[in-house]
């Protein structure tokens, strides 16, 4: 077997049939021979099947009429006329009744799904030939590596931003997104007993919060204080080191799984 393994990105593109035929054949051939990548591939498929099985609350009957009434009200150059009042009044009365009835029906359906409305049963576990004890960790590490790379980019941006007032909107948005995903990974890291990653994410979040809460235009002193915080905690260095550690750990897990 060659040393080549498809990356998670390759597998995602393969899942969505985005590569060309040769790529698809190469990945398929590899998956047949590599149990580690196959486990990852199946896990990906099963996660995305779970997404398919997710039900959502459907609006009740009469929703189309409700929405049309709202859209019609908001349409440009709407003709205000007796006609609309004559139509909308009975519609509104009907809607109140329909909304009550559909709310009751929805609650009943939601509590006791059965028959046609029940979502299909998942076939997740039956398809898993062998459990990979590190699969959960690998899933986390893959996401974490991306996260830390983005965090590094942001920290470098902040470090190199020109002094004086500058537009901070992009950095704020990026920090906000990183806070949200960082929390997800931190919870997952704690649950997997990866305290060092959880702590790293904690430290990172403190700086990200400063950035996310800053004004759109930051002054020289705000930037200075964020930079001082990054430097005093050696944050960029820590993020780089953790990122490298995450990368190494992934490689080790992958080769260990391939040798099993």
């Amino acid at each position, binding site marked *: 077997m060659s040393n080549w393994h498809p990356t998670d990105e390759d597998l995602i593109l393969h899942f*969505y*049939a985005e590569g060309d035929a040769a790529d698809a054949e190469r990945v398929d051939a590899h998956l047949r021979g590599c149990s580690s990548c196959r486990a990852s591939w199946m896990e990906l498929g099963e996660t995305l099947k779970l997404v398919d099985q*997710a039900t959502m609350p*459907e609006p009740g009957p009469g929703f189309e009429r409700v929405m049309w009434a709202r859209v019609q009200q908001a349409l440009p150059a709407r003709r205000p006329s007796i006609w609309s009042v004559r139509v909308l009044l009975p519609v509104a009365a009907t809607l109140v009744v329909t909304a009550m009835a559909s709310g009751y029906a929805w609650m009943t359906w939601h509590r006791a799904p059965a028959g046609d409305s029940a979502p299909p049963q*998942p076939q997740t576990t039956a398809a898993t030939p062998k459990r990979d004890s590190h699969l959960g960790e690998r899933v*986390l590490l893959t996401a974490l590596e*991306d996260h830390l790379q983005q965090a590094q980019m942001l920290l470098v941006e902040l470090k190199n931003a020109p002094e004086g007032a500058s537009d901070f909107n992009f950095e704020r948005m990026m920090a906000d*997104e990183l806070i949200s995903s960082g929390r*997800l990974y931190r919870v997952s890291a704690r649950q997997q007993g990866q305290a060092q990653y959880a702590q790293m994410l904690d430290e990172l979040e403190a700086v990200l919060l400063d950035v996310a*809460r800053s004004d759109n235009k930051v002054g020289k002193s705000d930037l200075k204080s964020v930079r001082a915080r990054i430097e005093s905690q050696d944050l960029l260095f820590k993020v780089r080191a953790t990122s490298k550690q995450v990368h190494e750990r992934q490689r080790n897990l992958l080769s260990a799984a391939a040798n099993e």
Partner: protein
Amino acid sequence: MFVLDGLLTGPRAPRLMKQMHPDDAAAVAKAKGGDEDAFRVLVERHTRGVYRLAYRMTGKPEDAEDVVQETFVRAFRQLNRFEERSNFATWLYRIGFNCAIDYMRARPHRESSEEPETLERISGHGNGPGIDDLVYAGEIGERVQTALNALSEQERAAFLMRHYHGHSIEEICGALNLKTNAAKHSIFRAVKKMRVALRPLLESAENAQVRR
């Protein structure tokens, strides 16, 4: 013999029918001429589809309804730009995704100081109910939605367009005004986050299987 042979070899089929609904063309033509009843036909036919994407994007029924309304109002205003040979639903959904992104960006800035309880919950391990119970309780839907809510607007839109609507990366680039790499990376990040968030559900399914 692999149990998941189909998964190994079968490329994912697009979900969205590419043909236009046969009656859409006639209704669009009339609506372009100012016929409000014809536009009403379009609204009533597509309102649930737009609602589903808006709900997945915003995570709240009342926000989804606002997005549906705004989508159709924008569609009405832009109707003259719609090319007859295109698919009306695809065109409309594009508007819907962009409306949802605009809507979410206009919402008050996220409260960043509190640890959201929902993340603890969606990632919560434990000896919870088995996968069958979760499906029937609709909890998977709730957890998937919470996981979707943890994505950025762009990641969520790109992922939903790819996953639920079967749009190609090229189409996503056009709809969201992204470069190819940005669209791909949005999908990659979204899938990675979904995997982390939904991993406990898969584990509980595996554990339930082992127990049986």
